[in-house]
Structure formats: C-alpha cells, structure tokens
C-alpha cells in the first residue's frame, strides 16, 4: 500500500541532487568537491560530510559567495577556490557543484574552467545542483555518469572475472566494512573487484572498462552502468544489496550467472555452518523477537533489501518501509510482499504522522529518526545515511555472510539493552 502527503509546509528528507552528487564524488579518494554557492550550501554539506565520512577524508570546500557577490558574480571566488584546492590537495579530479544562487545569477562556470585549464591540469567537472532539484539518487547517478567521459585508460582489454561495484556509498554506516566483506566473498569465488563506485581513486575508476561486468548494488548508479554498456560494451547486472544469508547467496549467484561461471558451493556451506553456530547462541532471543513490529526509514538502494532480510529471515514484522530517496528500482519493488506499508517520504512530518499509529516496536533509520523514536519510546538501530552520532571504524560488515550475524547482534542488542 503506497501513501503520500500533500502538505504545503514540509520537512523534506535529505533528497537533493546536490547531496547525491556530493556523496558520489565524495567517495573519490583523490578528488576535491567545490560547492559553488553561498555559505549555507557549503557549510551544511561540509558539516554532514565531516559527520559521516572520515575526518581525514573530507575534500570538500566552497565558493564562499557573499551578498555582494550576487551583484558582481561569483566567478572570482570560484577561481580562487579552484586554484587553492588544486594547490593544497593536488587532486586528480575537481567537481564543481553549482547551487541556486550562482545558477540564478548565471555565473559562467564553464568559462572559469576554460580560463584555468592550463593552471589546473586535471579534469574539472561541473554539475548544476540547485536547491529545488530533488532526488539524491539522480544526483548520484549524474555525478557517476559524468565520470564515464574520463574512462578508457586501462590496458584496453576486459579482464575475465573482474567486476566493478557500482552504488557503494562510502558514507553509509559500516560501508567500508561491507566493501571488505563483499570483496572477500567474491574472492572466495575467484572474482576480483576492479573498481568501486565510489570508494576508490580516480585513477582506478578510469580503468573501469577493463572489467567484464558492472554490478549495480540496489539500483544506485544505474545510469553509469548503462552509459558504460553503450560506450565500452561492459554489460551490467542490477543486484540486491546483499543483506542476509539469502541475499548474500543471491548476490553471488547473480554475478556468477552474469559472468557465466559456476559457484563454489563448498565455501557457501562453510559460511552457513559458521552462521548457524552463532545463531544457536541466541536462539531464545530469536524466538522472542518473532513478528516484532518494525519500521525502516532509509534510501531505496538498501532499504528494500534490509526489509526483505528482516521480514523473511529474521522474522520481524515490517509494518512500514519508508524510502527517503527513490531510485530506478523503487517503482518496481514498492509492491513487494515483505512489508505492509510503503511510503515515499516527501515530508518527514508526514512520515511521523504515518508511523505514530502503527505502534512500532523497533525502527531502522538514521540519526534523523532519533527525535521520533525518543518521543515514541521506540528503540532505534541506525543503519542509514545520515548517521551523525556514531562512528564506524571497526571491521563490522552488515552486508554479506558476516553481516548476517552482525545485523542479528545489532537488532538484539538494540531491543534488549537495559540502558535504553
């Protein structure tokens, strides 16, 4: 059942083109992002970046436009920002994301790039990202697709059993651990990860066409996969984000099938046995959480697959699946049968109004669900962006085989914690 709101005053979820583009470019380890706009646009995004990415990984600066720049134009400050960013970080790529004010002023960003081309000998990408342009997933896709123009610097032939992962967002909770786990699972099957979009260097991303297959996680970044198929003849496969045992096996099966290889079922069996032993240790609690009324609030790319794991495998009762940012897969999946109510969140106030009467007993979301959960006395597990009040430095995957035990542990600890 799908629901929506039609209010005039809304509390919007984080779902803008700008946010999506920042998250895509932000994962390029040797890139720099310039948010060309007023201080608000830069400061807000910078703050979220600091809170969700590693403190040593923030490569985001601003255009520093002030009121007076609105009459004179922002090209001068953009030039300063470009030159200083290049000088300080010597990046391999600079992405300029123009926000409402320079776009309304008509700043000639392309002209500035051309003027500085000799002094800054690295690719500079410009994307318009005004505040009214919604859909973070689209912004993410646009940013990723723009990278396609710089690809093709590999050895010119596709390496068999090499794949690219597309749609891994490095600022999601536990994302880096997830990546390590996926690489481990794939390695056990003799599959090598070539490039990760985006949690990689620009130099590695440029060699993406060397892979035999693009694997799109949860439908995030499908535009890049389609473009690479057209340009470099690299096929793609959209797979579920591998939450749960079933999700992990399906993930491997999909990739193996697309590559035309046989899966090594022995390694999967070993993983299954390891998990069984872990689950036996908490058997009583697994019975206890059966049909716990649950809500999930998060991005489409991971929320559906988490819901499927929680409902089908952990046996919670997923009452509400609320998607804060939709992607190309959302429409196809919103009538699936592992949740009761579907909501595309346009207004967080409306989300609260929908969730409140459901008597939710456990919520999966981000730091932005804290207020609702406190006011309604609902335990909250933070697995989605933006989680700004936790750090993630341990090796603790949520995805893949190892993720099953970890997710189970997180769920149980959240609901049985006496401190809550």
């Amino acid at each position, binding site marked *: 059942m799908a629901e929506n709101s039609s*209010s*005039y*005053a*809304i*509390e*919007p*979820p*984080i*779902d*803008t083109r*700008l946010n999506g583009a920042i998250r895509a470019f932000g994962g390029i380890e040797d890139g720099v992002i310039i948010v060309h*706009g*007023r*201080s*608000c*646009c*830069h*400061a*807000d*995004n*910078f*703050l*979220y970046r*600091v*809170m969700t990415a590693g*403190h040593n*990984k*923030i*490569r985001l*600066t*601003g*255009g*520093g436009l*002030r*009121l*007076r*720049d*609105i009459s004179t134009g922002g090209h*001068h*400050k953009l030039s*300063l*920002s470009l*030159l*200083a*960013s290049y000088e*300080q970080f010597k990046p391999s790529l600079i992405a300029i994301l123009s*926000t*409402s*004010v320079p776009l*309304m002023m008509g700043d000639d960003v392309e002209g500035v790039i051309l003027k500085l081309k000799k002094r800054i000998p690295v690719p500079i990408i410009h994307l318009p990202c*005004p*505040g*009214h*342009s*919604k859909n973070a997933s689209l912004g993410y896709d646009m940013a990723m697709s723009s990278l396609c123009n710089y690809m093709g610097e590999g050895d010119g032939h596709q390496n068999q059993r090499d794949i690219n992962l597309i749609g891994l967002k490095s600022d999601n909770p536990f994302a880096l651990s997830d990546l390590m786990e996926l690489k481990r699972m794939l390695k056990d099957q003799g599959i090598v990860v070539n490039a990760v979009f985006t949690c990689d260097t620009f130099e590695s991303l440029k060699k993406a066409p060397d892979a035999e297959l693009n694997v799109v996680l949860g439908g995030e970044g499908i535009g890049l996969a389609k473009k690479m198929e057209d340009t470099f003849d690299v096929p793609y496969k959209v797979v579920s984000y591998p939450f749960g045992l079933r999700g992990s096996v399906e993930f491997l099966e999909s990739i193996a099938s697309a590559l035309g290889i046989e899966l090594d079922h022995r390694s999967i069996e070993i993983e299954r046995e390891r998990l069984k032993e872990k689950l036996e240790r908490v058997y009583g609690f697994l019975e206890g959480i059966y049909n716990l009324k649950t809500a999930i609030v998060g991005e489409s790319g991971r929320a559906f697959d988490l819901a499927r794991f929680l409902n089908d495998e952990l046996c919670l009762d997923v009452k509400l699946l609320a998607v804060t940012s939709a992607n190309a897969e959302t429409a196809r999946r919103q009538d699936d049968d592992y949740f009761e109510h579907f909501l595309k969140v346009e207004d967080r*106030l409306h989300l609260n109004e929908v969730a409140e009467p459901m008597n939710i007993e456990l919520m999966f979301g981000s730091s*932005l669900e*804290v*207020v609702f959960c406190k006011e309604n006395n609902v335990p909250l597990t933070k697995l989605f962006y933006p989680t*700004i009040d936790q750090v993630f430095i341990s090796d603790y995957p949520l995805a893949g085989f190892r993720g099953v035990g970890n997710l189970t542990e997180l769920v149980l600890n959240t609901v049985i914690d006496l401190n809550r």
Partner: protein
Amino acid sequence: MINTNAQVRARIYQPVAMLVHGIASMPAKNAGALMAVSGIKDAVPLIHGPPGCANLRQMNSFNVSNPVRLAPCTNLSEIDVVLGGETKLYRGIIDLYHRLHPALIVVIPTCPSDMMGDDFGGIVEKAKKEVGCEVIYSTGESIPGRPIGYHDVMCSVVEQLLLPKAPFPKTEKSVNLLNFPMDVNKNQFMDMIPILNEMGVKVNKICFYNTHLTDLYELPRAELNIVDFPSPWIERMRDHLGVDYLAASSFGSDPDSGNPFGIEGAARILLEIAERLGIKESAESVIEKKKEEAMENCVDLKEKLRGIRIAVLDGFSFGPAITLVSEFQMKLEAISYRSFFMKSHGMSDNAYNQLIEMDIEATRRYGCEPEVLRDPTPGQELEVFKDRGVQLVVCNGGIARYNEAGIRGFNGVKFFMQSMSIGFDSTRILAESVIEALNTPIKKYPLVNMIGKDVQEPNLIPHWKKLGVIWRTIAEGGDGGCLYG
C-alpha cells in the same frame, strides 16, 4: 559542577565544531536564524525556500552536538523560482499551524526567495488572519553582526512582536538576563540570581532558558537587560522600548574593566547593575559581604594554586587564565600565540598584533614576565614550557601533546564555554577544576599522538589545515572576509 549529557556531547564535538565553524567553512544566516528560533520552546521555523535549503538543517554549525528538532520549509520548486513563492508561503504558514499548533511561527527567508523578491511582510500579515498564533518573518541577513541570521530573527521579535504591543508596564528594579540560545550558554548568569535577589533586584526573565512566547512579551517590563555582548536586538530594545542594557563583557578592551569573570569581575558587574538601577548605596554592602564570603571560600584553594607555573595558549586576558593569575596567584611563565584560528575568523594582522600587545600589557599589570611565543613549532613551544618549569598549560585541547612531555593541561576553552559564569561561585568552580586537572594522572602513551598534526596549528591534522587554507584564501582573496554569510 554538573556534567550533563549535553555538556559531555558538546565537549566531544568541540574540535569538529571548530573546524566547521570558522576554520574550513562559515555557518550562514539560516543556521543562525534556526538557533534563535530553537531558543523559543513553543516556536517553529518555516524556511521559505527549496528543499535544498532545509533538508540538512537538523544539523547546525552553531551547535553541532545538539541537532535542531524541526526545520520545515515551503518546498519551492523550479516553477516557483520563476513565478514567485508567495502562495506557497501563505499556505505553508496555515498548514504548519494546523499540523503543529505552535504559539509562534518564524518565517526564515533563503537566497532564492530573497532573489525572487517575495513580499514577506504582506503574506505574513494575510496569513496571520487565518491562524491562531503569532507569525513573524526574519530579514535574512540585512542586520550585520555575528552570528549572522540570529540577530535578524531577534530584531524581528522586537519589531514585529513587541513594538506593536508597546508601551509595556515597567517592573521597577528589574533586569533580564540574556544569553545565547545554546545549551552550553544557559547557565552564564545563573550564579548572579541569588545575589541580585538579595540586592533587591528582581530578575524579570532569563532568556534563553525554557523560554516561551509569553516570556518574550514580558521582556520589555525590565529596566535593564544584562547581556554578555551588545547586539542589534538589544539596542533596539533600548531605542524603542526603553530597556537599557549592560554588556558584561567587552572583548579586547581593558582586561580589568572588560572581564566580568572572577570575584573582582563579578563584584564590578553587580555594582554597575546596582548603579544603573539607582540602588548602589543599599546594594554595596550586600556585594561586599558576598565578595568577602567568596574570597573566604577560596582561601584554601588559593593556597593550593599559588605559585604553580602555568603557560597559556592563544590569549591571557579573556577567559580563565587572567582569573587564575589575578585571583589565585598562579605564575604565568609563557604565552603561546597561534594566529591561524583567529585569522581564519577574519582578523587582520594589525588587529591581531594589537590584541597581543594588549594581552602582554595585561600580564605585566599582574607582575608577570612571561615568555611570548608567536606561531612557534610544537617543538619550540614544548622546549620553552619545559625550560620555564611549566606545570599546567591552559589550552584549547591537544592536551595529549603536553602530557607526553610530562606537563598537565586544562582545557580553558571548554571551561569558558560550558562552566564559566558571572558570579562569585564560578571562581571557586574554576579553581576546583584546575586543581582537578593538576591531580589528573598524566596520560603516558596517548594514541592520539600517533596522528600527524600541522606544524603551525597542532590541533589540526594536515588535512584540516589544507581545508582551512583554502577557505581563508577564498575569504581573504575575495573581499576581505567571509564573516557575514
């Protein structure tokens, strides 16, 4: 001293707050405006702009550790940017009222709505007739002063809420105690309240402290506003509502008359209040008695602190260091100035040098001859501190570096932000906190020291410093500063 959860969070977030607030970015008008609205418990903001101007607003650079609860907006689209957003604003005010039933809606403009030229005043007047609450609109950033956006909201409170209801009856011998609407600031004047009461002064309102709309209407009843710094809305209250003000702090002026902290500072401020209210004669004896009691309470503490050698980072006159030297006779051996942070906030070389000269002059007034270090390397700084036998560094973090060299640290900025209040008791609390720092075991092998730091600014990792340099280049190279949005 009570360590609330909010204070602990604020302490943990302090280094990050420093980075996002001045070093590598500058919070702008909406952040300041939301901070002001969040101080009024039954008010809700309505950001008139596209979702991009509102969707990240739960986090606020002014108050990183404490997210804003609500940040609704009018959800302007591309079409609205061309045709105007007045209808959405009108309907948004009515919708928000019916959904949340606030006592006050504060409309906050954004860059797009400002550039579109929407008629805020006209729409707010029209919508007010349809709702059962007050509605005001902020002017965005038309009022200069930091924090930007904050002053606009508060001036709107004065001009749109209070002025139309003037004149207000006055309560004789009464004051308002006004701080910034941040958790860490709310105790700033609390220590004064019992003494003011004893002096015969009525505390009319403490703002912001569980402040509601009805409290705002009561503000003009006071004879005097007590604030830490002067600000435009306080000046408007003086000019239009006849509530004069007393600014307790005056950063950069004479350290004796500009510092409201410590026993002497508190006595001076209380006397000034009494004088302004015309009760100097009767209040003098109360203040003197309280002052003597406070000094008596500090005798033992003074004994423990006298002669202990300290070094101070980034300034002596403003903050706890001057109190430690003037009232507890701690021995100031060195001051180390690092210019990066102040200059990141737009301070010119000239102003910075003047500040240092004034600071050094102040140390001499208290009989100190400290070694003065300007932008030393961490190695040079430690060498001087060790040579001079420094036992405690009053710093703004980075204590592990001193600990490793066998020197203890006291985070003066943290104390200043969270615990330093004007009144007699805070001096005792300061002394006890410093004694606690002196008794805290030294951390012998701090993991944090494994992390490479910048040579000029050892509280920043090189990566943060680079971001800071970029931001300063834009600010200075553009037009001399990014201080005002």
